[in-house]
């Protein structure tokens, strides 16, 4: 069998750091709020309502999940949107992070 010949022109496989890759646009990122012993429960509910526009029952559900289970996954979004929500939640001094949905 003949050896394969290396083509003269190679495809550009370098990742463009400036543009979002497909995976970053997909809703594969979780916005997680973590429990802490300092934030008031009513305050956390208020922040969820302000940031996500949720009705009170949904906001209270997630607040209680944070309180009782240590954390709550609030939304699953693209990288950009998840980042936006984490910024908003941290502006209210909540312990929030974004995590990859493995």
């Amino acid at each position, binding site marked *: 069998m003949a050896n394969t010949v290396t083509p003269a022109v190679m495809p550009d496989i370098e990742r463009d750091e400036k543009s979002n890759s497909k995976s970053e646009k997909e809703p594969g990122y979780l916005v997680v709020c973590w429990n802490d012993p*300092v*934030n*008031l429960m*009513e*305050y956390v509910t*208020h922040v969820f309502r302000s940031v996500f526009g949720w009705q009170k029952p949904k906001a209270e559900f997630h607040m209680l999940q944070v309180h009782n289970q240590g954390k709550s996954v609030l939304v699953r979004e693209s990288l950009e949107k998840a980042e936006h929500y984490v910024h908003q939640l941290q502006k209210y*001094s909540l312990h929030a992070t974004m995590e*990859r949905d493995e």
Partner: protein
Amino acid sequence: MRLLRTENGNYVFRLGAGEKELLAVVLSLYPVIPPAHQPISNSTGIANKANQRLLDEALAEQRSENKKLVSSFLADTQRFHETETGARLTITPAEVEWMLQVLNDVHVGSWILSGSPGEDSPRVIPTDKNARHIGAMELARWFQHDLLVALNRPPEVK
């Protein structure tokens, strides 16, 4: 600080004797949470320098805006209407929102500075070093609670 009524969408609060001064003291402490305190993520790959820098910049910008709002609020001598028993304060919903952020920063920041007492040991022993942080934490929580109660409760009938 108790809600008297809502007026044209604004909140009218009654403050007892000394509460005006206490509110001013607490607001003037802002910001208390150390810069770059929180991580953007716990996941490898997301918790990188670029994402963290974006978060830190967004928080710094917001801190700067809130500081201006606090300064402007404290400098406005017409803001409080003196009464026989204390003062009356009218604030807009937007002001309630930044005030909650500011008070929570003082609340959480003072908690951090007082040693971050946890749920297992909620009581922190006051010392010369942490007493002012504990005081600030409790005052901020008190005003924060009053604002949240006002947001969730129909106005009192006078």
